[in-house]
């Protein structure tokens, strides 16, 4: 499925490289990068393909994030706590669990103050396709299962929090 895993070392030594400016950058710059790349991809390949590319990139990012940032936990409840803490401390968003059916591997998650979309002007469609992939990547790392993650509510469509429905593609983890 994944041809080549992203290597965390490619992010470089930020502490050394940005001795004065530090490791953080404004959210505007992150979004500028995100949406200009999306616009270019959409312009060249169409919206659907651009979304797929973003979703797959998000998956790689989520997997790398989980493998390099999130401490390994065997218990699901501990894993969720760890994710919440890391997503908050990295200022990606505030993760909350609304429902968790562990038997059927179905989750309803919400991400408030989302890095990608919170505060965006109203649009016709949800925009957090990158987040969909990102969450799927994290869940894949924990469960070993691929998840369908779909954003059902988004700030961009008028909601105050982004809500994601996640479901394992092949049932339970064995």
């Amino acid at each position: 499925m994944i041809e080549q895993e992203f290597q965390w070392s490619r992010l470089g030594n930020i502490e050394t490289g940005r001795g004065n400016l530090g490791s953080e950058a404004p959210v505007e710059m992150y979004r500028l990068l995100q949406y200009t790349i999306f616009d270019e991809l959409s312009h060249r390949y169409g919206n659907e393909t651009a979304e797929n590319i973003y979703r797959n990139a998000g998956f790689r990012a989520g997997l790398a994030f989980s493998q390099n940032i999130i401490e390994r936990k065997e218990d699901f409840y501990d894993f969720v706590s760890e994710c919440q803490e890391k997503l908050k401390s990295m200022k990606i968003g505030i993760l909350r669990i609304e429902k968790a059916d562990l038997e059927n591997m179905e989750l309803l998650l919400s991400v408030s103050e989302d890095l990608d979309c919170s505060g965006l002007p109203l649009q016709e469609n949800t925009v957090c396709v990158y987040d969909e992939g990102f969450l799927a990547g994290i869940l894949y790392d924990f469960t070993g299962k691929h998840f369908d993650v779909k954003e059902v509510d988004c700030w961009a469509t008028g909601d105050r929090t982004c809500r994601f429905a996640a479901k394992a593609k092949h049932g339970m983890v064995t």
Partner: protein
Amino acid sequence: MDQEFCHPRDYIKLILENLLDDQDFPEEAATFAYGQEWLPLYEKCVELYKSFDEMKIYVNALSKGNIEVDTPPRENHMASSLKHFQAQLRHLVWQAECIARGKYNQKLDFMGALSEVFNKMSIQLKEREEQLTAQQQGMTRIFDTLDPIFIVQATDCRNVLYANQMAKERFQIQENMCLTKHSTATLQEFLQLPQDGKPKELADVDKQHWYRITSARFPWSHHQDSLLFHCVDITSQKLHADMMEQAAKTDEMTGLHNRRAFECSVSNLWDVCQKNARPLSIIMFDIDFFKKCNDTHGHQHGDTCLIAFSRVLKHVFSRSSDIVARYGGEEFIVALPFTSKDDAIILADKARKRLESQTISSPNGEATYLTVSGGVASLVPDENDTLENLVFAADQALYKAKQSGRNRVVSAS
């Protein structure tokens, strides 16, 4: 109505009043939409009414605790804020679920004063859990240093829930409370014990150790009924008691039963022979001229003679059911179950001859010889007979043997 409300502003007022008073949408208000000029305003009023109505249903459900209620289909700022609130409530449920599972590191940050209390509660729970864990570890260390054995076993699945260090060592219970073949067999024995709290004595499967065991029902947890076994090693007391009992039954010099032990044992033989209608024979022996032997060669030699004869008796009467005892002084008695008088006479004479043929050295190196007289009595016990009469008959026969010249066996008539 038409006469009263002719201007669209009156209809708008009616719509808003119905909205605030929880009344149905006034259908007659549609009449003011006839004019194209007022149509957009009418449509906005309808949308406002429906939005408010949907919100009302949603908020009512939330206020009744139904946080699973479907969110309003219409997108607007109020609806999205309420959806956000609903998401937070659902997450609160999740956090409570985590706490119920012992994951106390939950932190609430979106519910104002409730967050403060909730976070205090989870911190308290965490601290209490740590205290309990520390106390449990302390208690475990104390119990591990104790000599008595403590084992807690689940009544349903038979798993060992707790075993102190001594229990692990003695019964080969592993650190993870898994049982070995040895411990399984021992605990199987324990489970047969009545759970009345009264102590019982039991040996382990190897019969290496004896334990005084108290078994009682023990509430291990709210969901787990169990049995507590408290075992004290009584092996040394048991050995001491056995030795004392043996000493009380044994003639110290000859190692034979003493008279008391004989009388206890022979009554069982009497019952067995009576039950099976088989003969029981009694032989009484008395060493001839034993007083003279003592007077001539000293008491030490007399003791040697007694020991020599006891060896002869052990050799001749070697069946496990035979009872051989020193009856007193130089008198010996033998009980032979399932043995006829004729066979008893043969055996008694065999013992007599064997003793007669032996040379016993006196303390000054002189070769001495010893003879013995015997009296035999035999019968198949029934309700009209008594053991005392049988022994008396054997004693009478012995008396006759003495009277008729000694070194012989005489049977009771």
